[in-house]
């Protein structure tokens, strides 16, 4: 498994389109979901910037699949912050949200959970979280980053990340109870 991933990265470094198709197909949905859930401005453009940076810097990357995932999400978060700053300096006319994307393949547990609660409800509850809580929980869940990796990506201390995720979970529980969502 590790060898296969290493070979994939090596092929991607050499510019293999199939390798990049595999990487993009595997990570882009998660990254795009992260950007949209965090209300990143122009998430599709930001997604392109994220992967172009991945392609540029892949030569310097060292690590396994888990480290690669954390690396990609760290880049995504930084590009999102940049996009927010850029957007704050140059406000643009809001454009209508693109049509809801088709869902990606899910594992059984996620599929069953999503069957009980709609995607819209999930997004609504996420909206109730603070930006930091949302970022921490999404990086933990979507990116499968550890507390330390999240702390590194967000530029916070691990203790602060733990506090944010605890408060975020409490907020989710409260919202679930308030909206009467039964899972």
């Amino acid at each position, binding site marked *: 498994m590790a060898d296969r991933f290493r070979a994939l990265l090596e092929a991607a*470094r*050499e*510019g293999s*389109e199939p*390798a*990049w*198709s595999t990487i*993009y*197909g595997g990570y*882009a*949905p*998660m990254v*795009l*979901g*992260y950007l*949209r*859930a965090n209300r990143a401005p122009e998430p*599709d453009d930001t*997604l*392109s910037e994220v*992967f*172009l940076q991945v*392609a*540029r*810097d*892949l*030569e310097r990357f060292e690590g396994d699949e888990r480290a690669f995932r954390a690396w990609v999400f760290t880049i995504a978060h930084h590009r999102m912050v940049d996009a927010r700053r850029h957007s704050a300096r140059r406000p643009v006319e809001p454009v209508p949200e*693109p049509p809801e*994307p*088709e*869902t*990606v393949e*899910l*594992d059984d*547990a*996620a*599929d*069953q*959970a*999503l069957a009980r*609660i*709609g995607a819209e409800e*999930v*997004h609504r*509850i*996420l909206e109730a979280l603070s930006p930091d809580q949302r970022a921490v*929980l*999404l990086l933990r*869940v*979507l990116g499968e980053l550890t507390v330390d990796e999240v702390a590194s990506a967000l530029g916070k201390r691990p203790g602060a990340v733990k506090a944010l*995720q*605890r408060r975020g*979970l*409490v907020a*989710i*529980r409260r919202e*679930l*109870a308030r909206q009467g969502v*039964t*899972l």
Partner: protein
Amino acid sequence: MGFLGRIRDEDAERLLAGYAPHGGSLQLDEVASFIDALGGAVPARPDPRDESFMVRQLAATARSASAAATVETVPMAAVRRARRRPRIALLAKVAVPVALVPAVLAGLAFAGVRLPEPARDALDTVGVELPNQSDEDSATSIDDNGASEDAASRSGRGESGGDAASSGDSEPANGHGGRGDQGRGREHGQGEESVDSQGGGDGPAGVPPGQGGTPPGQGGTPPGQAAPPPGQGGTPPGEGGAIPGSGSGGQSAEPHGGAPDGDPAGQPTPK
């Protein structure tokens, strides 16, 4: 754990992994289900029409980045050398002239040129002794140079007579160049004029012809003794030096001889 109570770190970790905490409440089970749903609801597939274009872009970007990294790796040594080169060039620009200065000074000294005092002092300070730089040598060498030139010119004009005794010997050790032609205004062999227009002529009588000058090897003013004062050192014209018309033998071209050797035969003084 109350409904709105705190969540422990270990419970949070289990929730984020999609599991309900051990002995947790019903609400925490719901949170665990929400986290599961989150993993399915949030990911969004990019527009498939953009995907193929994006993949081509990514592959091209990776290729160019890889090529750039390769190119960067190879010439780093060259870059470092190039950075070092200006330093070496600068060092050479400074060091070569600095090294040339003493060499040039030494060359001039060997050629018999009297170097300026500061230059001699500087070289003395660093322990370099230059030839032909003593006071006596320098004085006489300049005289001799002047005398030699004069003798050469006079010989070309047939004026060599009578100069021999008067040219170098009566020269004060004040280093004036060109005094060798002090007797230029004289007639050949005639002692009517002062040898030295600056006071020569009333000095002690010169050496008789054939006996004038300093014996070979003893030429010049002895060390520590200045040349005769002006007006006293000259040999009366026509009385010293070589026989008129005998050539420039008395007007020795000896660079260090001080006074002409006064070779009776008018031959150049052996060195």
